[in-house]
């Protein structure tokens, strides 16, 4: 079969690859290899704080700075001597020994949330006429995970572009799981609608297969045949107890749900833990509201930090307790930081020059701070980390070859990392 480099060809290549990875039984050597792979495979939980969290009100406090810079909050100690965080992050403070904070991340001013979001969610500077792929998408494409659970899931609502498969196509978009904090939470389209039993779903599938089989005899267009893998996956999910249970928040004890916090981000992070436990390899959790141009301190105090802190701290603790922390890379990140000077609306504006990113789990050496900023948290003074370096670090932890090149539908080669170097001090 010829391999066309246009859109048609790309899909057929994918078809060949997907078609060959069947869902049937594996031989014993394959099983053993698969188990070994499991031990080595790290999962990703990518916690995206849309809007850009303020570094000096979270991980990079500057208590010695003048009032109009240091803001309203004071630092508190953590369980790592010498490391302090904002007083509104007490739960995170108890997990500090597992967290590594990169304080010297430095990006470029791209002029908009949209462009910066695309940059930080993909690790690649955005261009006008195409979308690059998010870290999770690149990761699951590289590893080609198979199983009943979708390999990449998104929890809560994605914000701006950059969160999906981009030019890799929508098959590498995260499966959207919605808001687990909702009353009567259900994942869209995972359960049959009212009045339709699973038996009927099965019967419908049979009738459909008869129609499509008759049609295949008429037309061998590969484009049509490519329906099968995604459709197979969908039915596997519908008929799988395991999948339905994984997305069922009622399976979690109420006390644990309370411990994470009955908030969107709290329940979202709990869902992330559930998903990773059930075999999902990448989870993106989106939290909005961080673009505090006005009332920065009020928002942080009442809406943003308490729910995040509770959920995030609990996530680390929960992962550790279940023995999942070593095999799960957790990243807490936004598209940029915020201005050292508080503005006239008691807010902070965009600040890409210097900001913090928190890492935990997955081969990360916790309990340390890497890099530093000046006394106003304005400029990086030590160990600058570019977005590309960050990208290299994430992919190294996930076991993705940094030299990987993916191709657009027109055959244009796109490197996943453009010259970044992993921050080895952060890695075990």
């Amino acid at each position, binding site marked *: 079969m010829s391999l*066309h480099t246009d859109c048609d060809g790309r899909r057929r290549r994918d078809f060949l690859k997907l078609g060959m990875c069947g869902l049937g039984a594996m031989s014993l050597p394959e099983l053993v290899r698969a188990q070994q792979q499991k031990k080595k495979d790290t999962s990703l939980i990518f916690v995206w704080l849309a809007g850009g969290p303020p570094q000096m009100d979270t991980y990079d406090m500057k208590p010695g700075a003048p009032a109009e810079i240091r803001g309203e909050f004071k630092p508190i100690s953590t369980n790592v001597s010498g490391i302090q965080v904002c007083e509104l992050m007490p739960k995170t403070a108890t997990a500090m020994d597992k967290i590594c904070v990169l304080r010297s991340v430095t990006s470029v001013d791209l002029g908009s949330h949209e462009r910066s979001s695309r940059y930080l969610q993909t690790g690649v500077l955005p261009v006008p006429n195409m979308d690059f792929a998010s870290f999770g998408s690149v990761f699951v494409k590289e590893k080609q995970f198979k199983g009943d659970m979708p390999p990449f899931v998104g929890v809560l609502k994605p914000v701006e572009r950059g969160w999906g498969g981009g030019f890799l196509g929508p098959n590498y978009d995260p499966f959207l799981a919605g808001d687990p904090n909702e009353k009567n939470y259900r994942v869209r389209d995972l359960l*049959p609608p009212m009045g339709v039993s699973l038996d009927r779903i099965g019967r419908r599938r049979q009738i459909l297969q008869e129609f499509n089989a008759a049609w295949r005899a008429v037309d061998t267009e590969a484009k049509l045949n490519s329906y099968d893998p995604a459709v197979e996956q969908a039915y596997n*999910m519908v008929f799988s107890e395991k999948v339905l249970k994984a997305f069922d928040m009622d399976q979690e004890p109420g006390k644990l749900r309370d411990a994470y916090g009955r908030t969107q981000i709290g329940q979202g992070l709990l869902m992330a833990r559930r998903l990773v436990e059930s075999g999902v390899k990448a989870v993106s959790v989106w939290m909005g509201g961080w673009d505090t141009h006005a009332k920065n301190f009020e928002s942080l105090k009442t809406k943003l930090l308490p729910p995040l802190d509770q959920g995030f701290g609990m996530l680390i603790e929960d992962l550790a307790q279940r023995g999942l922390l070593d095999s799960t890379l957790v990243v807490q990140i936004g598209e940029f930081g915020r201005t050292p000077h508080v503005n006239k609306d008691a807010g902070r504006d965009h600040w890409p020059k210097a900001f913090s990113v928190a890492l935990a789990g997955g081969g990360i050496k916790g309990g340390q701070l890497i890099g530093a900023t000046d006394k106003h948290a304005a400029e990086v003074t030590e160990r600058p980390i570019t977005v590309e370096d960050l990208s290299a670090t994430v992919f190294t932890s996930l076991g993705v070859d940094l030299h990987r090149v993916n191709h657009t539908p027109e055959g244009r080669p796109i490197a996943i990392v453009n010259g970044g170097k992993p921050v080895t001090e952060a890695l075990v």
Partner: protein
Amino acid sequence: MHALSWQLLLATIAAVCPAWAQSADTTARRWSFPTHIAPILTFGGCNQSACHGSPVGKNGFKLSLYASDPESDHKVLVSKRVNLAAPDESLLLKKPTMQVPHGGGPRFKKDSQNFATLQAWIRAGAPYGDKDAPALIRIEVSPGYRVLSAKGEAIQLKVDAIFSDGKREDVTGLSVFSSNDDGVIKVSASGRATAEGGTGDAAVLVRYAGKFAAPVYGATMLKRSTNTIAPAAAATHPIDREVYGKLNQFHIAPSELSTDEEFHRRAYLDLTGTLPSAADVRQFLASNAPGKRMLLVDQLLEKPEYADLQTLVWADRLRSDVRFHRVGGVRSYYRWLKEEFLVNRPLDGFARALLSATGPSFTNGAANYWGNYDKISTPIETAIQTGQVFLGVRISCAQCHNHPFEKWTQNDFYSLAAVFSQVVEFGTKQTQEFDLRIEPTRAVINPATKRAAEPRYFGGDVIDLAPGEDRRPAFAKWLTAPENPFFARAMANQIWRHMMGRGLVQPVDDFRETNPPTHPALLDLLARELASHKFDQKHLIRFIAASRAYQHSTRSNQTNALDFKYYSRAYPKRMMAEVYMDAIAQVTNLENKFANWSEARRAVQLPDNRYNAYFLDVFERSNRLVICDREENVTVSQALHFVNSPDVQAKLASPDSRLARWIAAGKSDAEILDELFLATLSRHPAAQEKDRLLTRISQAKDRKELLEDVLWAILNSREFIFNH
């Protein structure tokens, strides 16, 4: 290096490359950096985008991409990588041979001709060369087009460099080769092109010293037969002569013609974005009118649904977006577009109206071409958009560097942007509406020259008007002149793509020398047909619809199952999300309602491209953030949506649906099946499938539920979702 081995080297060079040996004393030859050394760097991969040709270079050493700027490269090399006092210590020699660590690995062997040339050049003082030396004009590749006829058959390509003094030089050994379809033709580093087992044409991209060529070669694994020759000989329609002529070269036999059922449904979907009703199908099948297919086409072109569908297609291309143009803007844009297609405005007038539009944007729909987010788009944005929509050229790469495989330079890019630099905002921001005026002296700075870019007709002369004049109408007039090399072809290609499922140039906005049309003569023919008939889109649609190529069945035969480019069979096209949503509504007779958009009774008519409708998202309505063809991916989310969506189920089970009415009216199982098939698949059920389904119905505990399940299956089936 010792004298003896030096002579051996010369002898080796002389033996391998006679042209070089002509000047046996290499120190005295007339060196030319651009033609002798730069190609070696390209050949060795030094200046590719992954290495030193990247925008930031590599390891502090930056070359221009594929040697597009030899003067700058020479300066960089001499200052950083060449040691004139001790030539053999030059990093240019030591790095690519791994005598010192090199991130790029080994690129040349020490005993290779290329290494020897580099060495000799450095020893000669690393000159740039005589600025009066004859310049390289172009390269020519031979042999010409031919079709290889067995797997493994190969031809050796020869590349000649043509200089300004008329001299030719064989530069095959330093040219870089690649194929755009390795499955058909694979080309080795030495220029040997081999048939790999696929059937079709492949363009071989050949690069040397900043020049390139893209000769096309073909291969076929099929044998000559009467099945291929006969149709070609009998073809009367000009399109078929071209299509069948090409198929003949590959010995691909075309499929038979589509059945009346297939043609009928296809024409409805292609021209109106709607399905025929059961009554329409019965009438068409029963008719014996001569030329009934073309009569049908004429009828469909006159329906208002034709204008609705064209509005959607163009709104995608123009990226009408409720975030950028606001509710008022997309409303007026759609109103304007629909009117244009209702009156069948010639495409040249259509383009001129958009390109010369004045605001305000909520009143004059065409003005929305010029703005986004309540302000005027930058000249750069407008240049990129105009390039893709009307010129068929993706020039955005040229914003930052000269296009690697195309003649468009950064200067061309900024000269196009300069055409639009006069357009500025006018009016207040309060209402979200924008208006525009001309600021005659406003310019665009070309970052390469740091001066104002001269506005030019794309690839042509400077636009020279009276001071203060709006350049846009002059540009639009140039663009839409019948002899303009871009417009007619770009428009014809888009119309062809809509009808046939694939552009002759694909992607449709990516005309490039290195992305040649599959049928160059056919493309020219279509462009001429359009231009010579007042750019009447309906005329070209009729012209295409009348051909056998359009009317082929999608059913493949033994020779053409793997043809995806040469129109030996019709290519199935998945319904657009909006069309699919409307088709379900049409079949169940349950109209969709769109809150706040009373002008839209069907999804195709909905100006709000971000209207909250999960169905449309999941079936990939265009996001209009980039201009590109809608993809036809199948995703888990789509499959799940159809399996479990409550909305779909509601339509199926509704007591007001057509199915419910048939049941309530007491129709028999057979009657219902017949009506169902006619309404959805636009055909009667075949005997076998009818029997199978009748058996199921008779055995079902709940007849109504089973019929709903059959309808569900049909709506989800390939035969329904695809336009075939």
